[in-house]
């Protein structure tokens, strides 16, 4: 997620080539992306497994720190489930899968595209990018008018890296570890929860 700009550049470059370059229709339908996705998921696993600092940090904390990512999961899915009533074209399942990206837009949109097609994939990409942007912009408001955990909850999976600086700035250094642990746990869970929701 650190390379958000590079990621967006590749995405935009793809759109531009799709729009204007004579791309043979074979490429999007070749199934190539499915194999790249398998490689990606494997490597995501490798980096999770090898992340000893994350494991140590999670282990060193008393149980209550897990309540933060848990409340983000319950809150996000409930909130998304409720607003999805107003969106006729999306099923509850599809809406929940988009929400279960928790701001981790690159991985969630790729997964959702592969399982449910590019229309839902693009909704997931935009929705999760919005989650990061809104957190970056609104964290000071959340901290001032809601509560200290609000910016962390809003950041979701991004509270471990891209939105961490603004979170620490608005709620203080003693929330940094909670923010990192919550974001890390959510980041690890995204591929599992998204796949689970769409496949059950």
């Amino acid at each position, binding site marked *: 997620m650190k390379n958000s700009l590079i990621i967006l550049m590749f995405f935009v470059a793809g759109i531009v*080539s*799709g729009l204007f370059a004579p791309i043979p229709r074979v490429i999007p339908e070749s199934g190539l992306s499915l194999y790249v996705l398998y490689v*990606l998921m494997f490597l995501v696993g*490798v980096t999770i497994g090898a992340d*000893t600092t994350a494991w140590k940090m999670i282990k060193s904390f008393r149980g*209550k720190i897990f309540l933060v990512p848990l409340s983000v999961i319950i809150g996000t899915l409930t*909130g998304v489930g*409720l607003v999805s009533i107003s969106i006729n074209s999306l099923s509850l399942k599809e809406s929940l899968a988009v929400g279960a990206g928790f701001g981790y837009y690159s991985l969630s949109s790729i997964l959702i595209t592969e399982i449910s097609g590019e229309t839902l994939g693009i909704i997931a990409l935009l*929705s999760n990018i*919005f989650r990061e942007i809104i957190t970056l912009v609104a964290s000071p408001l959340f901290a001032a008018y809601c509560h200290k955990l609000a910016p962390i909850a809003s950041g979701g999976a991004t509270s471990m890296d891209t939105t961490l600086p603004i979170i620490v700035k608005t709620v203080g250094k003693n929330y940094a570890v909670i923010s990192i642990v919550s974001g890390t746990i959510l980041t690890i869970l995204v591929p599992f929860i998204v796949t689970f929701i769409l496949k059950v």
Partner: protein
Amino acid sequence: MIVILTVLTGGIILGFLMRNHEMMIRIADRIMSWSIYLLLFLLGISVGVNETIIRNIHTIGVRALVLTAGGILGSVIVSYIVSRFFFRDM
């Protein structure tokens, strides 16, 4: 999508076993970034050639924003309970 979850879990186990081979992990991390770039480039292409998506990008954007608002609001509200009862002393 059993395959995805199996591959992911297999990766976690292998990564855990190789956690001290920093060089390998760094290579894995690099390939991971590039496969994300490649996949989002491919997603971009399929969006670009898909006239239905391009024509409806406004509606799609609004839907995405509504979902985001619901997700953020929901998690801010539920985490308030956690904040109120478990992190009062902070």
